């Protein structure tokens, strides 16, 4: 899980072109100024890296970075920690399938 969290941090930093060091599991995407297109680019990068499919629909997101991916079983995608947990869950589902 720690390894996944670290990779999620790296990916978000790379996509947003910001330094990775200040990013923690508690960092909120909204506080990083993430806009809707940034978010789908981050999701795409995560899918590519971990070979998973993240069922995110922009129409279910009240605002960028506060996505409550209802029905997708992903829970909140507000913080880096929550995203890492969702990614870990999808990786686990893949390997147990």
């Amino acid at each position: 899980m720690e390894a996944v969290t670290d990779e999620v941090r790296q990916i978000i930093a790379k996509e947003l072109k910001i330094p990775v060091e200040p990013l923690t599991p508690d960092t909120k995407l909204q506080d990083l100024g993430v806009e809707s297109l940034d978010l789908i680019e981050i999701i795409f990068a995560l899918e590519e890296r971990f070979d998973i499919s993240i069922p995110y629909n922009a129409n279910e997101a009240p605002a960028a970075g506060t996505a409550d991916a209802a029905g997708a079983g992903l829970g909140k995608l507000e913080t880096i920690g929550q995203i890492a947990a969702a990614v870990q869950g999808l990786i686990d589902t893949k390997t147990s399938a």
Partner: protein
Amino acid sequence: MNRVVITGIGVVSPVGCSLEDFWPAVVEGRSAIGPFSVTRSERLSARIAAQVSGFDPVALFEPKQLGPMDRFAQFAVVAARAAVRDAGLDLSERLALETATVIGNASAGQTTLDDAYFRLYGENSSRLHPLTIPRLMTSAGASQISMDLGLKGPTFCVGTACAAGTHAIGLAFHMLRSGQAPVAVAGGAEACLTAGTIKAWEALRVLSQDTCRPFSRTRSGLVLGEGAAILLLEERAHALARGARVYAEILGFGMSADAGDITSSDPDGAARAMRAALRDARRNADEVDYVNAHGTGTTQNDRSETVALHDVFGPDARRIAVSSSKAVLGHGLGAAGALEMAVTALAIHRQTIPPTANFEEADPDCDLDVVPNVARQAKVNVAMSNSFAFGGLNAVLLAARA
């Protein structure tokens, strides 16, 4: 300045390729959204679209003519033929010399491109069909119409994504108004349902998995469509002199750019385009009875369009009937604005306001009279048609009872 009227309408649509099929489906809210069939669809997640069915190009074109034609250009030509026929216009050689052709497309020759690249990268073929370029080029719709009907006046395509059909009709209207041409064939055409294009739309995360529900609280995104609508625009005196049936008069056309986000529409940009159309028409906002909305069914667009309508119409925004035809027709991208202007002209002609179909639940963010599910007989003297494209390119037409 000349006055400009609509005397002919031709459609190739997911609810049929004649006005006899098209208008009742729009009025009754019979949605064409459902399962679709495209080649190489195995890896698609999208399961629904509004696809044109029963369109047989072999029956409609000579083999030699069909060779260089992508599906989008076929749609364009068939709709243009229907518009001219519907107008009862005899295109004499002299008139054809002056007739303008202005066609909007967003993605143009996608079927050709998808097939060509599959052959090249998927099948490792070392050569492509020699007519690949004439088929896929964006201007092919306009060119094929001019060739099919022998139209030799000003002819070009307009590429403003989801507003292209509206921009095309608006530009043709301005040309007729200023006397550059007495007649124009104008509209939009799109055939964007290919595996590659749909995959690319999936990546934007805006497609609905169930259906298109514009302005409904339960809306879940947009649904891709395809088709074409072509209007026969005619200088009013020319139309009256030959005793033509007139659907509506075009009063004004307004454009603007958001200069903001590449995908999210901006209420201010949309409002400025609506105001520009009213100004162009020298009409006041309180004269408008009906707005055919852009209404894509995405969370963002419908909320933003509502804000823009309140901004432009003030207290009247709650009186004016606003409906989206995308629940029935899907989002035909470059064809959408033209299909919706066809709906708007027919609403004026038939004095009937078509509904927003698939409507489930009111959304406080879309506090408008969205004519849920059931059409209305009502006075429609002045109507507006909105198109707000990706890239922040906005186009609005205003029309009136003739």
